[in-house]
């Protein structure tokens, strides 16, 4: 069953198009990440879903019912804002119980439900504290509990973890994902952090310039990017301009390169193309084999070693296990190759 459905959703501010003709179907109970650089329209899209912005065109429906002109208070959605928007004049429990008291539930019942929700997010016994007495991570959890208080049809989160430090952020990503799976609520998270998206999402929606660039499972988007933008934005990719000679070979810096049947080709011969290869699928051989390259910089990252190379003015990154290539030094000449089957040819 399709829970959340968008049809040609468009939002223009003056002559700037923030969200451009977005059509999407979100399956019931799935975890969606809207991923893109800042200004790509992902937050505007989320606000359109919430009803906080009115679309210029298109419609939003939930379980087959049109919601486009339904005000936010009638949509029965939960939302966590980027600023969290916790109410400083209310206690933690009253914040969580706010949507229940708005619906006129008895005070004792609301409080009981608030305590249950707080226990779910590991804040049992904190109900009587004030918001300013909590740490960043605890506030985060209160905002999540408050968003889930009415058992929303759809749970929306706008960059919910961006204010947390790196360790806590990773921990909260896992917690949020586990909580969502336990409750089975359809969830849409906006993020600019691709790791966050890959950690949590069932489906990643990559956006740029107001348009959806690719929709897919995290590994699908990573392994099989639809275009050069997605290849460059999700993880790191080496992008090399090339020419597709025919269906099974391409020309790169004057050298012919035979393609493997497992390589993905997303454009047709004659079209300007780029070869996209992940750093971990880049191989360094002896000089003279493959493409000519020079080691420019070596970074030891602990769990891996990164080689930054220069090939004909293009920067290339290769990734190896630590000490696997201790033979290489800065300024060494090497032969650059790519693992067959892991190469993607995209339209330039």
């Amino acid at each position, binding site marked *: 069953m399709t829970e959340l459905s968008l049809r040609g959703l468009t939002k223009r501010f003056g002559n700037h198009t923030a969200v451009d003709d977005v059509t999407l179907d979100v399956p019931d109970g799935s975890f969606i990440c809207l991923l893109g650089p800042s200004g790509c329209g992902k937050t505007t899209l989320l606000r359109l879903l*919430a009803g*906080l912005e009115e679309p210029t065109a298109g419609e939003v429906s939930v379980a087959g019912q049109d919601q486009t002109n339904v*005000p*936010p*208070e*009638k*949509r*029965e*959605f*939960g*939302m966590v*804002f*980027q*600023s969290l*928007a916790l*109410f*400083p*004049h*209310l*206690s933690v429990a*009253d914040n969580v*119980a*706010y*949507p229940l*008291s*708005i*619906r006129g539930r008895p*005070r004792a019942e609301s409080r009981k439900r608030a305590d249950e929700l707080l226990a779910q997010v590991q804040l049992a016994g904190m109900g*009587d504290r*004030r918001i300013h007495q909590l740490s960043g991570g605890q506030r985060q959890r209160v905002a999540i509990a*408050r968003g889930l*208080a*009415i058992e929303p049809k759809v749970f929306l989160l706008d960059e919910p973890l961006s204010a947390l430090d790196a360790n806590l952020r990773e921990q909260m990503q896992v917690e949020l994902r586990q909580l969502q799976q336990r409750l089975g609520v359809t969830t849409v998270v906006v993020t600019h952090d691709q790791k966050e998206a890959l950690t949590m999402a069932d489906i990643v929606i990559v956006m740029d310039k107001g348009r959806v660039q690719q929709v897919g499972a995290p590994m699908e988007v990573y392994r099989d990017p639809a275009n050069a933008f997605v290849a460059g934005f999700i993880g790191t990719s080496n992008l090399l301009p090339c020419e597709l000679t025919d269906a099974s070979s391409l020309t790169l810096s004057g050298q012919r390169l035979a393609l493997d049947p497992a390589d993905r080709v997303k454009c047709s011969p004659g079209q300007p193309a780029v070869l996209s290869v992940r750093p971990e699928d880049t191989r360094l051989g002896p000089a003279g084999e493959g493409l000519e390259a020079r080691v420019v910089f070596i970074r030891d990252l602990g769990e891996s070693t990164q080689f930054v190379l220069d090939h004909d003015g293009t920067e290339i990154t290769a990734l190896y296990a630590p000490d696997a290539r201790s033979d290489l030094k800065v300024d060494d000449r090497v032969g650059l190759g790519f693992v067959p089957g892991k190469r993607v040819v995209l339209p330039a």
Partner: protein
Amino acid sequence: MSGNRRTVTPAWLAALPAGWLAVFFVIPFAIMLAVSVAHRVPGGFFEMGFELDSYRRFLSPFFGGILLTSVLISAAAAVICVTLALPFTLFLSRLRRRGQTLVLVILLSILSLSEVIVGFSLSTLLSKTAGVGNFFVWLGLLEESRSYTPSLFALMTGMCYLALPYSVLVLYPPVSRLDPELGEAARMMGASPWRAFRTVTAPLLRLPLFGALILVFVFTLGVYLLPQVLGQPQHWTLSVHITDQAVFQSNLPFAAAMAVLLLLVSLAMVGLTLLLGRDKGAEA
């Protein structure tokens, strides 16, 4: 503020405003206190001394009624003014930057008008011969032009006109700092716009709202010309009577005593308002 010795601002700088306060406020107030207990010489001026005659004279139903009128008129002006200023300021904060500046400049220019100009302009505007009544006749709303002044309505209009810029200026900074996501969060959780305002926006603005109430209250307590121009004799406030005693009756001790009492009453009201406005902890 802190006990840190290496503060950027040297402590002696505080001596400047302290000296200013002493010379221009504390000393004149001390003189006024001394005059209020001085002995009045009928037909003459006064000679220094200590007697409570002036205060005793105030303890009559007549002056008690005037004090009550003053407090009620100022309190009403404060409530009306802040009730108008809050939606106005909320609306203002949602305008674009340039629009906000323009409105604020216009509003501030009202401050350059003196009580005299505002009083006589309103008195003309609300009069029978040249006033707004003629406009209503022209519109066909009235058979015959009528006068709307002097009246309580005219007095309130004048006081609110004078005090509105102050209340907007007090409310504007906190209102424009208010995170719009707070109101949106309330909407997402099922609150109608009015409910969101009542349960989130208004409680968050409680302190500035009390601040604006106090400011307008104290400000209008001191207004002494408008009640004479726009009000009927029963609307004459204590400030009018202080002026009357000091200027026309030459009874400075009694005027000073009334001024001291007015000050005490304002202080008491301010204290009461602050007490009400205190954070009472968690409440739904």
